[in-house]
Every structure is written in C-alpha cells, then in structure tokens.
C-alpha cells in the first residue's frame, strides 16, 4: 500500500509588519483578590490614530492577543518577545513560550494543543480551519483539478471567526491542514465596566478580561444588562483568542 504520507508542514512567511505601537498599558478594573496584579494589563496598538489591536495579559492566560474589529493588513510591529507570543497564538510555534518568571503560571488549557491536523479532503463547509495563521470558519469549499486526469486541489474560503476577515487558500487535497480547537463556554454576565464584561465562571471566580463586543451584539448586551435582565454570554475561544459571540436569556 502506497498511501501518501502527510506532507511536511508548509512554511509560512512571517506576516508583513503593519502599524506601530504607540499605546501603553492600562489596568482593567480589578476585582477578586486572586488576580495577579503583575499579570494584568493590556497593550494597545495604534494605527493612523485609531486603536487597532490590543494584547491583554490576564490571569487565565498569560498573554492573549485580541484584535479589534477593524483588522490591520498584518499584525502591528511587535517587540521580539510579543511577536513570539503572537506567532504562538497563531499556531506557528507549537512549543509553549516561557515568559518572564512573574508571568509564568498555569493556565486552564495547559497541555491542550491549539490545533490538530486534518486531511484537506475531510474538511467540510461550515467547519473550521486555520488559514494564514487565523482560525476561520469555512464558508466555501470547492475542488478543482488541472486537466481531466489531474489530482484534486481544494479551494478554501474562510472567514476569521474573530475579525470577520476573509482568507483563501488552495492546496492539494492530500495536504494536511490545521484545524483550530474551538471551544464555547457560557458565563453569566454580572457586570460591564469600561467596555469590559464581568463574567461569572463555574468555579465562582469572576473574569473581567473580555471586551464587550462591538456592533449589534454589544449594544444588545449593554441594553439587556441595563434593563437588569439576567443573561448568559457564550464565549468562543480558539487559538488563545476569545470573544463573546452569543447571548441567551437565562432560564427563570
């Protein structure tokens, strides 16, 4: 049997640098004493006078990249250490990064890899895939071949599940693609402060590192919260990024 083995992972060129960093760190409102003060903060990246990206450092994960709704062409220029982290969050490096001692602590996701490989042909529309280092939902998947007797190639169009940006890729159908591990968790909303959600976790702890989403959903959340409605927020996480993606009125 001559099954073709998986091809070596394709090398991805590093993303072209985009804007430059001008923002500083800010302290999200502290609550709960377990929070390591030194591990909190956020870094904002600015471009043409607008905030473009923010990196949050939170108790749940030492470093999380959170790219705001209007995504840049490429990630902003980062310090070597941060670039390393962004590359890791993009699944470009499999080894967990050792941070400075005071940032090194256990996370909930320890040991779980951010992605797993899958033969291209086994992907499916509406499923997920990593395109250009970004977790995407597959919105289009088609095959083609060069000449009638050629081998199949898969054409993928995906939409970044966090930024909504469109990515495309074409590869032989025997190729292995990375599929992001997608998780969805529901948390009760207990507060909104300075554009950040306070969410009650199952463990009883409160996390306050998640931004209020922009757009209709964000407005809906604020409005419901202001009316005193009790709501659950579904948080989607993939490749060390997270975002609120759905709300649901809590059962009475």
């Amino acid at each position, binding site marked *: 049997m001559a099954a073709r083995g998986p091809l070596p992972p394709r090398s991805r060129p590093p993303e072209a640098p985009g804007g430059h960093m001008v923002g500083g760190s800010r302290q999200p409102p502290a609550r709960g004493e377990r929070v390591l003060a030194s591990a909190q903060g956020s870094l904002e990246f600015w471009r043409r006078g607008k905030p473009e990206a923010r990196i949050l450092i939170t108790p749940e994960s030492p470093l999380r990249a959170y790219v705001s709704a209007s995504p840049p062409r490429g990630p902003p220029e980062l310090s070597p250490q941060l670039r390393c982290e962004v590359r890791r969050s993009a699944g470009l490096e499999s080894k967990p990064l050792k941070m400075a001692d005071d940032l090194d602590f256990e996370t909930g996701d320890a040991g779980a890899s951010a992605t797993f490989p899958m033969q291209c042909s086994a992907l499916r529309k509406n499923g997920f895939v990593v395109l250009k280092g970004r977790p995407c939902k597959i919105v289009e998947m088609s095959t*083609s071949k060069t000449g009638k007797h050629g081998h199949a190639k898969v054409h993928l169009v995906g939409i970044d599940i966090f930024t909504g940006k469109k990515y495309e890729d074409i590869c032989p159908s025997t190729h292995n693609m990375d599929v992001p591990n997608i998780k969805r968790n529901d948390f009760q909303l207990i507060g909104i402060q300075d554009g950040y959600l306070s969410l009650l976790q199952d463990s009883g702890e409160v996390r306050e590192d998640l931004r209020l989403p922009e757009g209709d959903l964000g407005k809906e959340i604020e409005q419901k919260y202001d009316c005193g409605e009790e709501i659950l927020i579904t948080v989607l996480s993939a490749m060390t990024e997270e975002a609120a993606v759905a709300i649901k009125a809590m059962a009475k």
Partner: protein
Amino acid sequence: MAQDSLQCLAQLASLHGPIFPDEGSQVDYLAHFIEGLLNTINGIEIEDSEAVGISSIISNLITVFPRNVLTAIPNELFSSFVNCLTHLTCSFGRSAALEEVLDKDDMVYMEAYDKLLESWLTLVQDDKHFHKGFFTQHAVQVFNSYIQCHLAAPDGTRNLTANGVASREEEEISELQEDDRDQFSDQLASVGMLGRIAAEHCIPLLTSLLEERVTRLHGQLQRHQQQLLASPGSSTIDNKMLDDLYEDIHWLILVTGYLLADDTQGETPLIPPEIMEYSIKHSSEVDINTTLQILGSPGEKASSIPGYNRTDSVIRLLSAVLRVSEVESRAIRADLTHLLSPQMGKDIVWFLKRWAKTYLLVDEKLYDQISLPFSTAFGADTEGSQWIIGYLLQKVISNLSVWSSEQDLANDTVQLLVTLVERRERANLVIQCENWWNLAKQFASRSPPLNFLSSPVQRTLMKALVLGGFAHMDTETKQQYWTEVLQPLQQRFLRVINQENFQQMCQQEEVKQEITATLEALCGIAEATQIDNVAILFNFLMDFLTNCIGLMEVYKNTPETVNLIIEVFVEVAHKQICYLGESKAMNLYEACLTLLQVYSKNNLGRQRIDVTAEEEQYQDLLLIMELLTNLLSKEFIDFSDTDEVFRGHEPGQAANRSVSAADVVLYGVNLILPLMSQDLLKFPTLCNQYYKLITFICEIFPEKIPQLPEDLFKSLMYSLELGMTSYPLTEMSSEVCQLCLEALTPLAEQCAKAQETDSPLFLATRHFLKLVFDMLVLQKHNTEMTTAAGEAFYTLVCLHQAEYSELVETLLSSQQDPVIYQRLADAFNKLTASSTPPTLDRKQKMAFLKSLEEFMANVGGLLCVK
C-alpha cells in the same frame, strides 16, 4: 438555406393528424419529402448554420412518422435515406470533435450530432419492422467514427485540428464541470445501443483497443518507475503520453460500460438481449476453462494465455477492464500513485459497479436462455463469482485508503461497495471474505486511513457495512458481526457520554470528534434502512435518539453539533417513518417532540453573531422544517402494517396514543413560525422548505389551523398571501405560488365543513377569493398554475358565492366597451353554468375546471393587463 426555411421544413417534417386522409397519402407525402430532402442536401457542402436545422428535420421524420409508413416508402429511397443519415451522423460527429478542440462557445455540430444519435436510438430500438441485421453495417460506421473521434492519434483524431495539428491544453476543471459519463450520457447510450446491434464487430474492437492500451500503460508506468529509481527527485517527467493513454482508456471504458449494461434506477437491470445472444451464439466455439483463466488472471497479458482467442468475447472485454484496474493497483503498490489518473480510477469503479449490478450472480429465472460462459463465470455458487467479489472488495479497500483525498473517486468506490451488498445473494458471498471483516473492524476503530474520508463517503460506508450485516449467516456469526460493527459504536458513545465530568470536557476536541463521528455513523445506519431490517435498525437507533436529546442540552451553544443531532432525526424520520407501525411511530414522534422542546428551550432568546450571516446560519431551522415535513410524509406514503415488521420483537402492546404526528408538527410550527421572517424567505432553500411544510400542514390537518393561537394564525395566513402575490415579482419560485394555492383548497373545505361564518379562517378565505380571482382573471400567470389556482378558486367560490358575484359585477361594471362587456358577461355565465349552484362535488369541480380552461382561452387576453 436560411434559418426560416429550415424551421419551416422541420415543421413540415412533423406533419401528422387528420391532414392525411389515409395511410397511403402519408406514405406519398413522406416519400416526396424525403426525396426532396435528399436531393437538396446530397452533394452540397453543409454550412455550419445548417447543421442543427437539417438534423431537426431528420429527427422529426424519424420520431413522428410511424414505422409502417417509413418502411412503406420505396426500398431504394429508404436505404438512401439511412445512408444519408449515417453519412451525416459521422460527419457531424467529426465536426463536433473539432468544435471541442477549438473550444467554441456555440457548439452547433454537437447539438446536431446529439439529435442524430438520438434518432438512431429511436430507429434501431424497433425490431418489428426491420429485419435483424438491417442496421448493422450503419451501426458499425457510426460506432467506429465515434471511437475514432475519441481516441488519440494514430488510431484516432482526438484533439486534432482540421489541418492535423495536435492541440493540448491543461485547463483548470472545476468540480461543477459534469463528468463525461453524465454530460454525454445520451450520446453514450446511443453509441452503446449501436454497439450492441453490431456486437460482432464492436465488442472485439473495444477489447483489442483496451488490451493494447493496457499494455502500453503498463510499459509507460514501468519506464517512469525506472526513471524515478535511476534519478530520484527528477521531476522532468512528460505526462503527455500518460494523459493520452488515460483519456483513451477513459472513453473506451465509458463506451464499454454503456454497451454492456444499462443503468436502471429501482429495477433489476437485465443483461441486454443482444449481448446475451451474441455470447450464446459463440458459446460452442468457446473454451470455458481458458475463458475463466483470462478472467482470473488480470495481472497477465491476455494474449500470453494459450488459446486466448477461443474465449468468450464479452468476458474478455470485462477482463480487459479488470486488466486496467490491475495495472492501476500495481502502480499504487509501486508508489506511483502520483502518476495515476483519478479520473481513470473513477471510470474503473463506475464500470465495475454498472457491470456487477447486471452480471454478477445472474438470476437465471429472469432470462429465457442464458449463456453458458456467463453462468459458469458469474452464476450463483461458482468459483468465478466468489473470485470476482473478492477482487472487487480488494479494489474497494485499496481505493478507500489510497484515494481518500479524491472525493468523487471515493464516492464511486463506496457506491460499488453498496452494490455488492445491497442484494442478499451478493452480500452472502461478500461476508465470506476476510477482507470484509477487516474493513468493518478498521472502520469501527476510526483509525486512518478510513477516517480521512469525507463525511458523505463515511456515511455510505457505514450504510454498506450495515447492509452487509443482513446477509445470510449463522446466528453465531451474525452475533459476532454486529459485535464488530455496531456495538463498538454504542460502547464508545456510552463511554464518552457517561463520564462523570462529561459536561466539563464536552468541548474538548477529542470528545467532540468522537461525538461527531458517532452522529455521522447514525445517519449512515439510517440510510441502510430497508423494509426487512427496519425492526432491528429502528430499535438500535431509538436508544441513541434518546441520548442525542441529552446531547442537545450539553452542546446547546455549539451550533454545528446541534445541527448534526437534528440531522440524525431528519434521516431516521426520512428513511424509517414510512415503515413504522402505530406504536413505533409514536415512539419516534415522542422523541422528536422532546427534541423540539429542548431546542426551543435553548434557543428562545438566543442571539448569536456569526461571521457568516448566510443561509448556513439558519441550517437548524431548515433541518427542523425538514424533520417536520418528513414526519408528515407518513400521511402520504405508508408501508407499515400495524407493526407487522416488528412482530416477534416485542410483545404486542396496546398503543396508548399519547403523541400524534399532529402534535409534534404543530408544536414545531409554533416554534418555527415566530423565527421565520420575510428576510429569511429570501433564501431559496429555506423558502421552499417552509412553504412545503405549511402546505403539507394545511392539507393534512386543516382542522388544526383554526385552533392556532391568533398571532400564529395570522402569520400563517400572511405567509400564504406573500407566497401567492410575490411571484413573479420577487425571487420566489412559481413552485411556492403553486404550493400556496394547493393549501387554499383544504382550508376552504374545512371552512365549509365547520359552517362558521365569523371565524377568522372564514374571513381569511374571503380575502383569498379576491386574490385568486385577480390572479386568474386579471394577471398574467403561469399556465402551469391554472389547475391549482382553478381548484382553489372553485372551492372558494362555493364558500363565498355572494362575494364572487360581487367581484364579477364590479369587474363588468368597469367595462366601457359594450362589446367587451357582453363577451365578458357571457363568458362568466358560461363559466359557472355547469355548476349552479356550486357545491363541493368532484364532478362539478371537474366541470368547472374544464369551463375555466375555455374561459381563459376566450377572455384571458381581454383582461390580462400586460
């Protein structure tokens, strides 16, 4: 000739009916026509623009004139006509091939060729009026020219331009491009038929062409391998030779497939009588043992077997395809998969499936006489059939692991597997192969390479494995089989969901994959349902369905899993509900109701943002509507015999009717209606499914409609109005409009039955009367809808006679021209004359529909504002 004159001639060629006083005059006319036609086209060079017109004339003559008229014209004239037809077919065929090379947009010769080939099919299928062999020589010519156009030089002229230059382009082919076997199915069917008539010539021709190419392909691949071994990594392989061979083999296999067997849907395909006769005729000259040897040694060159010329030609043609298959398998073993053509791989399994359906384990009862070579090689209880089944199974297993990345090929391969097990006789032999058991075990373990297959292929594979389980086995073996195939599924599933911390780990990737694989497999199991296994499969699946509802709760925030769970229910309902007796159906209704309740609890008040705000986002709605429609379909198609198939599986228990289809469906509608919006109806699939569902409900449970809560009732009525009035203004299809019209009749009848003149439904129907009236009388509408609209109209008129008179009055009074006024008034009188007073009586209704037709023809043009 000008287009107009060609069109005129084509119409004259289809002249028939009372214009001919007797057969004699018809014969005279035809003879005169053909003579004139031949004089006109013989000896002239046909222009491109004339090809289609001329072929239409000929095709009309052959289709419209009865055979006895055709044969009554002077013999000489008739043979020149057939000669001319042969000549034109071959010449148009060559021009069509040229068009393909030049990649012309307007394929006039292809269209003309299609028409003529179709005429041949009509002509040769008649064996009453022409003596046997009458068309053989012509068939040979057309067949040869078809083959010639499809083979590469030097044997053929494929890809050669008019001045003999070869052109070859590597173009991108998208998945939307139809496979040749479908795109050219009509041509291939005609050519296959001609090949059967001239079997004496065509079968040996195909055999020698194929055998010769197999040898060349083998040699070519070997050279490539040596080249690779000598200088690994050198990528300067010229694939032109290989591609030419693949393309030749591709067409030869397609023609062979269409020649040897028919593709029937639903019925058992029979060996074509011409093929059977051909084999029987030569069976006395044939050496059976050598024939079996040719068949059983696909790895050897046919001509290397002593006495190879004294073998059955049909079996030798089959074995030529097996030789292609064997070369492919060997290349795979030699690590040359990258050089092979997936298209050829597809052709091979497509052919084998078509062949196996017809020839493998021939049922001798179906034939008057059977060829001895056939019954010896492929009959029941023969070594030959056992060998072939083993060989095909090996091919399937190899393809599934090697070609998992080629979706279409993998799909054709599992279809071959289904063919092998869907008939009990074949399945009995399949399960005796050790390979089959290995395949089952391997699939159950969800390990590579089988888990690389795409999900539709995995589902079909599961279906095949389940079908195989119903083959004849002793109890112990059967027990063991199910232990290998179905039990692991159950065990793995239960192990996962019964873990203490399942709630916490349900989002872990391995857990999600396990759940997805199980749900996919369940869909595959449901697909395997047949009347004689539904009892076992239903009980097996029911256990899962209950657990699936629990999963709905756990994965409530994971839409892709929720959708897959609903899909399992959709499949089970789709495949099984028609076989279920009362109590089993009720179990399913209950499960569906619970599913809907859980869905509703988890989704009311949920808002999600989805990066893909497209149709897919509403997949869950679509699936639920499909589920409800499937549940309702039992009212139309029901094969159940009060749990007959379940007898012996369970002590008969009196069914306490706790849940009915109506309950589930109405609950579902309560759930769906508030979620549907005008925006959502812009998605065609959602729109069609929605209207299909509400029409079904109106037809099946009209009595439940008035009981709906007020706002739901209103939105239902509004939906109907929208469906009727949007067409053709928006993208809603005429199908939707038709569905809405169909829904009105039962609603109006329901009103008539209830005799309440103030109910909301009664008032609504009055409004619909006006809508349908306007639609029929005043608007331009699709004539296809006249019947549905007419039926609805009549029922509504019965219900609201006064309002109808009023509508007519208003319309008449608005007419200023007294002539038109009178014509309209007469027409309206005539319309209702046969049904006064209108009653809901079938006879009257039919009379009304007939009058309506006349009415439309009479005054439709007067009123319809264009």
